[in-house]
């Protein structure tokens, strides 16, 4: 049932599943950590500014401590030099956590097919949503947040996600 209308709850008793309630709460309160490195970060600024206003989707509480955040937004090129830092930040985030790769560079390395650029952050950390574009428009970034919201509705309870992921920098 739709529990967003609190008026309906006045005298009612609602029976539901624990997962559904928790994920309903999570859905509208994603706290992003913006790992902004390059051009895409400027488009993320536009997403957070008043015209596109990411707070309409409950994701405006930008956290700059990974320990407060549950959504890692990697906006920009990640170089090999940057990779261990990205990994460290990902590891510091508490479970459950989700990752968006914003733009061509974070998704695949983009047109920087060269000696310095990591060919996609999924070599280091597991990615839930990839956003195309160089840089993507703010609408595309918002769409990715909505996509995460749709995904997390189906998450089971408090399970640690992506336990079978093995990145290139794990155990080195």
């Amino acid at each position, binding site marked *: 049932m739709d529990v967003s209308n609190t008026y309906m709850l006045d005298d009612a008793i609602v029976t539901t599943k624990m997962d559904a309630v928790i994920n309903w709460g999570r859905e509208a309160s994603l706290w992003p950590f913006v790992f902004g490195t*390059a*051009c895409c970060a400027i488009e993320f600024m536009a997403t957070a*500014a008043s015209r596109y206003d990411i707070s309409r989707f409950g994701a405006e509480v930008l956290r700059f401590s990974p320990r407060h955040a549950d959504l890692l937004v990697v906006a920009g090129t990640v170089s*090999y*030099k*940057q990779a261990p830092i990205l990994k460290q930040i990902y590891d510091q985030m508490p479970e459950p956590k989700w990752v968006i790769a914003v733009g061509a560079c974070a998704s695949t390395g983009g047109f920087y*097919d060269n000696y*310095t650029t990591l060919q996609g952050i999924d070599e280091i950390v597991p990615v839930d949503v990839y956003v195309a574009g160089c840089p993507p428009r703010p609408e595309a970034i918002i769409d990715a947040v909505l996509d995460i919201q749709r995904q997390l509705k189906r998450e089971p309870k408090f399970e640690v996600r992506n336990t079978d992921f093995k990145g290139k920098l794990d155990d080195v």
Partner: protein
Amino acid sequence: MTSKEMITIESDLLLETLSEAKEQGYVLLLDITAIDNLHKSHPPMTRFELVYVLRHENFKDVCTYKVPVPDPKIGVHTVTSIYASADFAEREVYDQYGIYFQKHPMLKRVLNHNEFVGHPLRKDYEITKGQYCTVSQDMMDEMTPLLKAKNLDPDKDGLMIVNLGPSHPASHGTIRTMVALDGEKIVAAASEIGYLHRGFEKSCENHNYNQIIPYTDRLNYCSALMNNIAFAKTAEDMLGVTLPDRGIFIRIIVAELSRVIDHLVCLAAGLLDMGGQTNYWYLFNPRNNAYDFLSKLTGARLTNSYMRIGGMAHDLYEGWESDLEDVLQKIDLGITESLKMISNNRIYNDRIQNISPVSAKEALDFGFTGPNLRASGVAYDLRFSDPYYYYDTFDFNMVVGSVGDTYDRMMVRFEEMNESMKIIKQAMKRIPDGEINVPDKRIILPNKECVYGGIEGMMNQFKLVIDGVKVPKGEHYGAFEAANGELGFYIVSEGEGTPYKVKVRAPSFYHIAAYPKIIENYQVADAIMTLGSMNIIAGEMDR
């Protein structure tokens, strides 16, 4: 464009020659780079040559010294004793080409990571050969000598050593500054860059001139169009062509608009760091309006790729004047509203006045250019000292500060936006009709009717797309007054469609080199404001 001299000197005479040059007034060391002659069709005697680019204090004359390096392991003597800006520049050459600089105070890698093996800009280094970095360096090799020079000991003096960045909301991208703190006061600092090194220069050596335009977008991504223009203009200078007047005026209009939106994002972010969030909305929202105009014109909001060698993708669209006027009005409103809140605000003024001042002499020594140099009271602007594109016929002022502190650096940008808007308004009135591209089939693609309608046009298109624009053999340093300062491209051509070498003289690279020195003896909170006011853009700094 500039009166130029290219002088070849022996490596033993480098130090004397440059000290003499400085005495003769060449006060600004613009850039140091190297050329690897391995793949040249007629290679000179030595494999490596160093290039030193200097600018005279009349800010018009540029002098280039070329130094053959017989043995890269022995290298040449450092010039850090003459120019402070040589510090990072020499480190970069060492990192990218493996040329040693004797007696350099801290010769280590600057762009590539500490576990990197080899030197990527050498011609025998394969472009796609990436190397994983497993652990970031701890930077104590830089911090310990700094503390030792000040007779400080972290344990005895109770200092705390903290990293600001590389992932920090106020680090504006990916800059790492390690600071030693006595309470809140910074007693020593060292910066590490290169986290956004994306191999621009190596990519240039593997793409033809028009394919490089999208890469230039992503240098200073806050004013992408200006980088397009600066690169295209340098290549055009080498080709010896000039755009028709309408093309030039379009370039002036979009370049000045880019300068405005670059300053807008710098000030918006700087004031946000300070806690002035409302200013962020006031200044960033008009930038969104400018994006609308630019996406209507070029198809992209941020990375426009509008320019081509010898012109631009297409003409202005119908009704652009009213759209642009609307944008200018909104920008003007944003600036006015923002200034209303800060210009007489004691929190704003007291917090940033007399913070990290840089004197005129120091600023030149550090290799500052652009608003940061003008804030220190040096009246250097390429649009005045060496005007290109009819800039001498426009009525606008140069904005110059007096103290060179954080306040000046921010306020110079505020005023420059007004001056740029003045230029745009005049250019809108004066823009003539006519062609926008150079009428030369060797440079500009034929129109689609010719391509689909005849063999000649089709071959013309094919040759240009496959081979690229053939730039005559030679070496050229082209400079452009970009939003952050002098943006230079040093292009070496072998007469082919792909440049042999491209070096970017990025203003932010020299600004960040000075940053750890100027934040000393100020508090952490001041350092954040100083970084914001210098507008370091990681894309052009790390390239």
